[in-house]
Structure formats: C-alpha cells, structure tokens
C-alpha cells in the first residue's frame, strides 16, 4: 500500500517536474522569440556548448567541479540546521587565501598545490566559522550573518587586488596594473588529464566527486553524520543526548565554508578561470552551488547529477552567448528551471494534502 502510494507520488512528481520543465522552457522560448531571437537556435547552442562533443564536455565538467564542492558543503550545513547562505563570499575567501599561498609561498610543485587547497579551505572554513561564533556568543542569526558576510568578502577581495603590497598583479614597466592578482604558478595548478580540445578532466572534478562520496558516506554511516542529523532535526534533544551542539553546528558551518573555499581554490587553480584572483571570479558559483544542494534536497550523491546539470547550463550558456544571444538569458532559463525542479514535489504534496485524506504521515 505504502509502496504503491510512493510510486504514485513518484510518478506525479516526475510528471509535474516534466511539466514544469516544459513550462520553463516554453517561457524562455517565448522570451527569445519576443526579443527577435530563435528559440531552436538557442536550444541547439545550449546543447552544442555543453554536451555535444568532448570540448563541450570539458567545459561543462570544469564548471561542475566547483558547483559540486559548494553543494556538498551546503548539504552539511543544511542538515545540521545551521543554514549557510554565504557560500558566494566563502568561495571568494577561499580563492583569496589560496592565491595568497600560491603567490607568496616559495615551495615546490605538489606541496604548493596542496597548501593552496588546504589553506583556501581553512580560511573559508574559519570565515564561515565566524558566523557560528557570533551565533554562539551573541545569538546572531546564522542565515543573516552568512548573507551579510558575503558582501564583506567581496570588498575584502577587491581590497586585496587593489593593493600592490597585497595581491595586486605586478607592474611591468610603468604600465597600469589591473585590479587582479598575478597568475598562480603552474605548480599550484590542478593537473588536467587529456588534451584540449579532446576531453580534458581536471583534478578538481575528482576532488569534488571524492568529497561528495565522502560526505555522503559520513552523513549516512558515521556517528558524526548521525549526530549531525539529530542536531538538525532537534537541537534540544541532541544536546540532551550529549551532542556538543555549538561545536557540532559550528563545525558543520565551518565544513560548509571549507568546501566553498575549496571551490574557490578550484576556480583559482583549474582552467575554468584565469588562474588569477579577481573580484568577480566567484561568478555566482556560490549562489548556484547552494541552489544545487537545495534542488538535490541536501543529499550529496544527488547533488552530483544536479551539479552536472548546472554545469551544462553554464557551459551551454557561454556557448549560447557566443551565438549572439545575451548570456543573461541563461540566468533566466536557469532560474526558471530551478523552480521547475524545486516546485513540483511540494506542489504535488500540497495538492495531495488537499484532495486525498489529510495529513498522511509522509
């Protein structure tokens, strides 16, 4: 009976999602057509830019890695009930710390890379940890503080790349220096396997996948994950059961920040960007990664395909822009698609609650 019900619900959700996607795409097509573009051309460009060939896959997967990392972290914090929405800033802090290490430490190859990644994760984790600290000491709302600190992070990076003593690129002769850092040394870059334009897989992707699997296992199978879930569902009982609430919650926030920071380091050290610290280098990966986690319902394994899908939209979007359609369109399409994925399960359950017997325990 229950099994039958769930399949019925599953079917409805699937159908509603499909319908949602169709509506989202139709709206987008309408928009393109209304502004004098060609919807089918746009769709084709999306396809060609994201999965049509190995080059396209390369760029899709390059975007997928940082998105997945952010999402995995977001899963952890959302589970713990310490809801972090400041990933965009944490990505930047990670990149800032990573760039500092990569450009300022004189150590050899792989160690430099490891230090860069580790330091990025550490710094962003500490940054997110500040929100936990403010919550612990003064009861400051975590959602609010993580949001506000995003804007602080943006200014901090802007500051860093505008100060020649800090991270601004070195001046050649009396040419003007741009507000960006130098490129990080090759030793601090993530290795890629395969040659462009063939499929090129960057180490960042493997790190992200490993992180997702690790966190999925940790959440489902370890004492830590058990306590984390307990904390998220009922912090008072968790405290009673001997969980050090502030520590575990703070740790969850820090972990989520650390993954965002790692994503920042991947943006810095993989070919997705320019290997420089730049004020806008987070390119909304933080916000999008958060959405990935939410679409994936805070399940790290589910976040993998969702992150891939977001990667597809990003690389497809870049390609679309290259056909002359303003790339802003992709943001529109992406937003509509997120709604199409997030809304149906809730809408279906809402509808069920209204029609069929009320309040069947889910």
């Amino acid at each position, binding site marked *: 009976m229950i099994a039958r019900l769930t399949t019925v619900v599953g079917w409805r959700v699937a159908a509603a999602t499909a319908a949602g996607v169709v509506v989202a795409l139709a709206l987008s097509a309408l928009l393109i057509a209304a502004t004098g573009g060609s919807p089918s051309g746009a769709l084709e460009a999306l396809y060609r830019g994201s999965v049509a060939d190995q080059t396209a896959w390369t760029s899709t997967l390059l975007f997928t890695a940082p998105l997945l990392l952010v999402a995995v972290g977001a899963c952890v914090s959302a589970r713990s009930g310490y809801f972090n929405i400041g990933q965009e800033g944490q990505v930047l802090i990670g990149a800032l710390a990573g760039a500092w290490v990569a450009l300022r430490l004189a150590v050899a190859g792989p160690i430099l890379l490891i230090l860069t990644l580790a330091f990025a994760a550490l710094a962003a984790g500490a940054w997110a940890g500040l929100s936990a600290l403010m919550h612990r000491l003064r009861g400051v709302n975590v959602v609010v503080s993580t949001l506000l600190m995003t804007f602080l992070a943006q200014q901090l990076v802007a500051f860093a790349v505008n100060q020649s003593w800090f991270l601004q690129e070195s001046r050649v002769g009396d040419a003007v220096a741009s507000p960006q850092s130098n490129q990080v040394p090759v030793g601090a870059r993530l290795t890629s396997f395969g040659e462009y334009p063939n499929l090129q897989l960057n180490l960042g992707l493997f790190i992200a996948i490993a992180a997702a699997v690790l966190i999925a296992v940790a959440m489902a199978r370890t*004492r830590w994950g*058990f306590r984390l879930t307990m904390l998220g*569902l*009922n912090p008072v009982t968790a*405290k009673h059961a*001997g*969980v050090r609430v502030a520590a575990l919650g703070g740790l969850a926030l820090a972990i989520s920040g650390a993954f965002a920071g790692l994503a920042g380091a991947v943006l810095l050290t993989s070919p997705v960007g320019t290997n420089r610290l730049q004020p806008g280098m987070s390119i909304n990966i933080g916000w999008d990664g958060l959405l990935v986690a939410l679409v994936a319902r805070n399940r790290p394994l589910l976040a993998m395909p969702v992150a891939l899908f977001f990667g597809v939209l990003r690389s497809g979007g870049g390609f679309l822009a290259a056909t002359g359609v303003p790339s802003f369109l992709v943001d529109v399409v992406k937003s509509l698609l997120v709604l199409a994925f997030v809304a149906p399960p809730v809408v279906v359950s809402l509808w069920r609650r209204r029609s069929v017997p009320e*309040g069947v325990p889910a």
Partner: protein
Amino acid sequence: MLRLAGISKRYGPVVACDAVDLAVHQGEIHGLLGENGAGKSTLMKILLGLVQRDAGTILRGDEPVEIGSPQDAVALGIGMVHQHFSLIDPLTVWENVVLGDKGRVDRSLACAQVEEVAERYGLPVDPTARVDRLSAGERQRVELIKCLRRDPSVLILDEPTSVLTQAESAELFTVLRRVVRTENRAVILISHKLAEVTAATDRVTVLRRGRVVYESRTADTTAQELAKQMVGRDVSLKAEAAALGLLPVAVSPAEVTSDGVALRLRDLTVRYGGVTVLDRLSLDVGAGEIVGLYGVEGNGQATLGDLLSGLVVPDAGTVEVGGAPVDLTGAGALHKAGLGVVPEDRHRSGVVLDMSVAENLALKEDLGFFVSRRRMRAAAQRRAEEFNIVAPSMDAPVRSLSGGNQQRVVLARELSANPSVLVAAQPTHGLDVGAIEDMYVRLRKVAGSGVAVLLISTELEEVMALASRIAVISSGRIVGVLAVGEATAEKLGMLVGGVAA
C-alpha cells in the same frame, strides 16, 4: 444547543473519529473523556474549523451548519481554550485577547473589556502586561478571558487544569459553574482526570478509538465505571487510582534500601536575568528509593529537569552521582555518570520526531565511528519487545507513534544504559490510563532493582502513590521533605503554598 451527528475523520489508515454523536446542552458542563488518541482533540478541532470532517453533520439548534474556519466557529459562538500554542509571548494581554477578532483595534476598549471580563469571573490580570512575563496560572486566565470575552455559548476546554495548582483548578471550576449556571452557556471539558470529571461535570461522554462508547449523566455514573469504559476493561481502583486522578487508597511505600546516596544535589542555583529560578536547591536520593519532587508548575521543576538533562548549567551548586561530582559543562556528562532522564517535554528534548524508532533508541549510545544500521535495528527490536513498544517498524519515524509509545521509547533508551539514577519528569503527562499504569509498574521495578528514582511531578496523587519520600519545591527551593507516611494532601498543600510544615 450543539449537536454532532455521525462525525467521521480519517487520517490515512487511522480513524480518528468514527461516526461520533455528541450533544451539548446549554447550562451544562459536558465532560469528554478518553485515552490518548481516542479522538477528542480531533473532534474539537472539527468543531473549531481547524480540521475538516470527512462525514457527518454539525447542528446548531436544528440548523445544520458548516464550520470552515475558526472565524465560522466564533460566529457560531464556539470558543476554545487550547492547552498549547495559543498565546503569543511578546504581545500584551489585551493584544492576545483581541487576536482573532475583526474590525479595528481599540486598545482602551479592549483593556476595558479585559478588565470587565476579569472582574465578572474573578480572573485578575493586567491587560497591558506582556504575556511572556506571566506565570502559567495567569496565562491560563488570559486564555479564559480571551474566550469568554467573545461571549461564547459553547466553551471548550482541552485539559485546562494540567498547569494549575489545586487552588487554581478549584477557582477555575467555580468560574465554569458560574458560566454555566448563571449565564446558561455550555462547557465541554476534556480531561484525563476522573476526579475532576466526576466532580465538575453534569454529563459525560467517553470516547474510545474514535467511537462514543459511553454516555451518561455524571450523577448516574461512577469513576469506576468511567475508567472501565475508557480503558475497555475493568480496572482496579487500587493500583491505578492515581492514574485516574483519584487519591490513593494507602499503598505501602517501596522498601528503602538505603545503601548510600546515589544522587546528591547541593545548592543548585540558576538565575535568568534577575530571576532566581532555582535557589540553593539541595536534595538526596538513595539507591533503590523513589523520591517525589512535588510542586506546582512554574516553581523551577522544568529548570531542574533541564539541568539534569544537561540543557542548563547552574550558576552555582553541584550534582553528585554515585558519590562523584559531575562536571555539568561537559556534554553528556550526566549520562556518562549514570544518570538517565525521562524529560518533561518529550517532543522538545526526549525524542527526535523525524528519526526512526531505532535511531531514537540509539541516540545516546556510543555507536563507534561507523554506524551499523543492521545492528541498530536489531538492538531496537529487542528493546521494543522488552518495553512493549508498539510501532509499525523500527524504521518508522517516532512521529508516527502514539504518545505512550513515544514515552516508552524514551524510557527504554534511558534504562538500557543501566543508569544508577533515573530522573522522571512528569513521566505520565499526556499519557492514557494504560500507559500510565505501565509507567508506574516500570518505575517501581526500576527502583526495586536498586536505581535511585527522582520523580518530578505536579500530580499529588502520583507522588503519593509512587514515592517513599516527598520533597516539596516552591519558588525554586525545597521547602520540606516528608516521608509518604506523614504526608497528607493538606500538609503538602500548605508546603506548596510556601507554609512550612
């Protein structure tokens, strides 16, 4: 007159109400009795428009009516005092009172009305006070005032006395009498306490598993009969009398095997802002002994319960378990020291509603780095059998269990750690007779096996039935400790009122 005819309501497979007929007449207090989950609240929620029925009719006089929302209910003159969740803390008394009205807000008029209603029924309260500054009793008054101000012809009270002192309860019933006799309203009183129901009501209806199983004038029935109808079988009024809210026929106290003090509380002091909630509270509980901590709600018991659950760290004082002081700042320190707690509010601090039965049973366990679901489930299965936990499966969320079974989950978990001390705070709150009986048996058995039991309770009957010594708490301090032999309702009442014995 209000009549319900053939009301049914299903929640999926659960039939909460099954063709219920109920007639309430003006000028009477109608008692509604039933075990947990009998469907009382559901029925009342249907009357109030918070839940929509699947079948049946509601008749006001002879007119069938539809109640789609609480506003409809108000329009029909139905008012309800909820036990939970109905006052909004940061708002003032008068704001809470006018909440749910229509039309513009008139502060002075509202205050005047509050005072007028308060005056009329003898429920003094300051209309401009913020609700979060009020005591439990005062809050209850506000609830009543809020309801009565709307001049309801039918007034529903869902377990109104659980938070009141005996004096306050008596006062409440006087008010209800007045409401019924002189103003010709109807009152529906939902309760678990047979004593209350037999004393205060005119008619009584008993629900069991969603059906009306008994209906009578109160004068024509007995507590014994009502108990039997509720439970569905004969109950001896001896052992379970306390469970039914009747004073116990002398029960011999459990033998005190006083081989040392297992739990020693010394000078515990807790302050919130300027308020001293616990004031140098000291108490000993010997191994194998049940000590009752009796007092009216709002005197620090909840804080003591939280303290012993590790949720509150005292400003001063010590807790010793088995002779060794416990560092109360350490997470789970009390648990490790061998202290088990059945907390007062199980939903808040006892269980995680959305985790499975198996997980809830393992909450406090040291699971090792990796958690084996299989072993967890197997262990849970064993405990479920041992403690008679009825659950669809060990993977079902605790939310889907009845209150009694949720409480058993808590008890099973706490006892399976083989504690040397068990603190049971209001362990029977909200449980039905069967569950209460079961709880009593288990507590006695636990004490019999040498565990020190601290029973925190507001139910006089409960402490008298179980404890060998009764400590009385008032304003956060112990005002007296009596052996159960010397304790009488009068003596305890005086102590609770702050009069030294």
